[in-house]
């Protein structure tokens, strides 16, 4: 496999061509080069996928060492690329979804002054992401890790005219630094402990360690900090909602489908280490599930369509962490993949909505768009059904597998919270859907004239992703549902060596019947929520606004007519919305945000104070010099 480098190289060529010649040759050139480069990468990835499936019956991985990167003392790191059953999944997602989104961007970014710049960044992102997933050492992975972060900031602040965008980029930057710090320290710990940064040798050395080895626990925790930062989990999630300031395709590609899931990929890649650290695993699971429920609840009170989706992304990644935290790595990867399809589709659909409404993002000013933009409507519906886990759609299979694994390998409480989150997910997604597409139209009348379905170049990607959101789940239908679970089989070689540990936690007595029961419970909950949302937002849209205003005159009228509804509102929905509101306004905005900004401010003001020491008086400089000398000499004399 000496041609692995072909996968990322085209995107790099794309970066160079777009970056250097894009302005000169115009938008048409860029529109071919940008998506074309990713398309080529995708085609080559497909070839490698087939090669892996058919040529490698034993499930071996391919590693191509490019060159010796560092060899000093006892540390040897080679820069190499790896293709195995794990990385190929990510490669396919990155290049496949990436290609579709590139094509969509051609339409979405049409006539933007920064067109060439946009595709340069986007190609650079795909390149970095491919380096991240194909890296065969922690170091190269870190290179990709930094690269995607960088592209992310560049693209968040893409429309830099607005100061808010620049601030959002800044915030993303600071938060990610904290994560990267953890990652880097983890890297050094690995280096100390194993004298190598190569996945293969580190894992083979680690597998002889005892379960619960404190060093491994420390390493995994540090790496997890990195994952928390990159994948926007509690407490480092604050940057993601703000990251929505970037162009919508960027949100779809980077902040939903690929980059933010890098943390999950990293943990799965290091599953050998994580399985040796049960403590970390439970922390991962708890952080995942808490993030899932917490951000889902915040999602229910957002009015900006993209922010709802952002919180939804955080919540869904929480699911993935839950999965990997209980040891169901395959389930996590499976959800990662299906999530890439339907969340990418949701964002692109939202982009199409925003596009058709000339930039309106507030759902309170939407509604009834069904008749104006039918293709967007239908594909969006598929995505909504997929994310809420309606049976038959891709999200159902993956989410169900996670929930079952949470129950089976983890703890019933995890399952309860997970199902509750599923209910919340259904609530905010249907709410979004109803507010946007159904009911009365509430947009300003002058906008109505311009409403139009997006051009083909934007709708075809929607249809493609819709197809995968619908059918993508069928490659992983679990045995209990009569499927073959090809996905699990495909992934098996990756976990070959750690199979014994991975399966040991499974409770054998949990029967098939129980699995069906749990599945049905979660479906029923989703359906109940669907009915409630239907009641609130479609039949009586005014209740929703009443809720916002708390109790007004309309309350009395409603009380008589919809007695049941009102009890429900007063005792369930209303307190719940209040709690969500508190979550959002206090925890999210004040505490977590405040901590991030606070850190930045502390450093800033420390700098402001310290610079005043530099008074400009040469004698004070001399004084500081002597003071230093005196202290050092004093230390030496009196030590």
């Amino acid at each position, binding site marked *: 496999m000496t041609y692995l480098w072909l996968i990322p190289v085209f995107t790099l060529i794309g970066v160079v061509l777009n970056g250097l010649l894009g302005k000169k040759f115009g938008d048409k050139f860029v529109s071919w080069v940008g998506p074309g480069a990713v398309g080529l990468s995708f085609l080559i990835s497909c070839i490698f996928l087939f090669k892996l499936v058919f040529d490698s019956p034993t499930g071996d991985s391919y590693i191509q060492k490019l060159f010796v990167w560092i060899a000093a003392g006892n540390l040897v790191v080679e820069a190499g690329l790896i293709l195995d059953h794990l990385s190929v999944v990510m490669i396919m997602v990155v290049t496949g979804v990436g290609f579709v989104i590139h094509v969509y961007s051609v339409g979405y970014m049409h006539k933007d002054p920064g067109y060439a710049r946009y595709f340069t960044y986007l190609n650079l992102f795909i390149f970095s992401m491919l380096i991240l997933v194909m890296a065969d050492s922690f170091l190269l992975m870190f290179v990709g890790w930094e690269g995607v972060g960088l592209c992310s900031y560049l693209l968040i602040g893409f429309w830099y005219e607005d100061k808010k965008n620049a601030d959002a980029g800044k915030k993303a930057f600071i938060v990610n630094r904290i994560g990267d710090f953890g990652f880097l320290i983890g890297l050094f710990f690995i280096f100390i402990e194993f004298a190598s940064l190569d996945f293969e040798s580190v894992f083979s050395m680690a597998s002889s360690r005892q379960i619960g080895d404190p060093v491994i626990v420390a390493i995994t925790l540090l790496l997890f900090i990195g994952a928390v930062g990159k994948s926007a989990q509690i407490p480092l999630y604050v940057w993601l909602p703000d990251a929505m300031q970037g162009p919508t395709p960027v949100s779809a590609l980077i902040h939903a489908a690929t980059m933010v899931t890098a943390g999950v990929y990293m943990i799965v890649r290091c599953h050998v280490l994580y399985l040796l650290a049960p403590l970390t695993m439970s922390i991962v699971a708890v952080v995942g599930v808490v993030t899932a429920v917490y951000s889902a609840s915040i999602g229910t009170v957002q009015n900006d369509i993209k922010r709802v989706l952002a919180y939804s992304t955080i919540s869904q990644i929480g699911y993935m962490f839950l999965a990997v935290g209980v040891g169901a790595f395959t389930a996590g990867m499976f959800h990662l993949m299906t999530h890439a399809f339907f969340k990418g589709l949701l964002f692109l659909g939202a982009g199409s909505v925003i596009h058709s409404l000339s930039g309106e993002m507030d759902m309170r000013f939407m509604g009834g768009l069904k008749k104006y933009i039918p293709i967007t409507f239908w594909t969006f519906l598929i995505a909504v059904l997929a994310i809420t886990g309606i049976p038959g759609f891709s999200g159902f299979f993956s989410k169900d597998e996670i929930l079952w694994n949470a129950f089976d390998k983890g703890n019933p409480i995890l399952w309860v919270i997970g199902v509750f989150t599923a209910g919340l997910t259904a609530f905010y997604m249907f709410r979004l859907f109803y507010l946007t597409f159904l009911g009365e139209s509430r947009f300003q009348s002058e906008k109505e004239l311009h409403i139009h379905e997006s051009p083909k170049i934007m709708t075809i990607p929607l249809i493609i992703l819709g197809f995968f959101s619908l059918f993508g789940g069928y490659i992983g239908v679990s045995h209990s549902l009569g499927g073959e679970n090809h996905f699990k089989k495909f992934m098996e070689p990756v976990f070959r060596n750690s199979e014994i540990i991975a399966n040991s936690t499974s409770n054998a007595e949990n029967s098939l019947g129980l699995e069906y029961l749990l599945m049905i419970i979660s479906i029923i909950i989703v359906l109940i929520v669907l009915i409630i949302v239907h009641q609130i937002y479609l039949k009586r849209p005014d209740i929703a606004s009443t809720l916002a205003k708390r109790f007004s005159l309309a309350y009395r009228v409603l009380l008589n007519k919809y007695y049941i509804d009102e009890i429900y509102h007063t005792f369930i929905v209303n307190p719940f919305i209040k709690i969500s509101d508190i979550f959002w306004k206090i925890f999210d905005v004040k505490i977590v945000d405040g901590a991030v900004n606070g850190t930045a401010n502390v450093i800033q003001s420390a700098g402001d104070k310290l610079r005043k020491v530099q008074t400009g008086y040469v004698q004070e400089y001399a004084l500081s010099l*002597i003071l230093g*000398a005196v202290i050092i000499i004093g230390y030496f004399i009196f030590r």
Partner: protein
Amino acid sequence: MEFILFYIFGFIAVVSALLIILQKNPIYSAVFLILTLFSVAILFLLLNAQFVAAVQVLVYAGAIMTLFLFAIMLLNIKYEEKAFSKLANLKITGIFVTFVLFIEFMYMIFLRKGLGIAGNISPEKVAEVGNVELIGKILFTKYLFPFEVASLVLLVAMVGVIVLAKKKF
């Protein structure tokens, strides 16, 4: 005799050194610096370093201090209303810190163990060969390279002064 000379010139050196930094008039300061340099030169003589003592008087006290006086006259600064820095904190902290530095030096001197490996140039040898001849010999053999480099330093200084003083640029 040696002790007496040491005490006398040591005392003069310290007092005039103090007066350098206490005098308001820069010209007086310069004169006291000359006095210090001169008494240190005498101490050099006590230490059997006749050549260096001569250089000290000729070059230092003679040439360099003339330059100082010349500069002071040129700038025409006679008196300073305030001789000391207007930074009040600086004076207090500065004196305190230098006092600590002084204590540390004294501590170091009293605590010091022996000296390094002694050479073979005993006072008798110096008396026999003569200090200047010895210095000349070693300067042009063992220390030939530093001697050449010292000329480079002077060349750089010359170029530098021309840069700073040239009329037009």
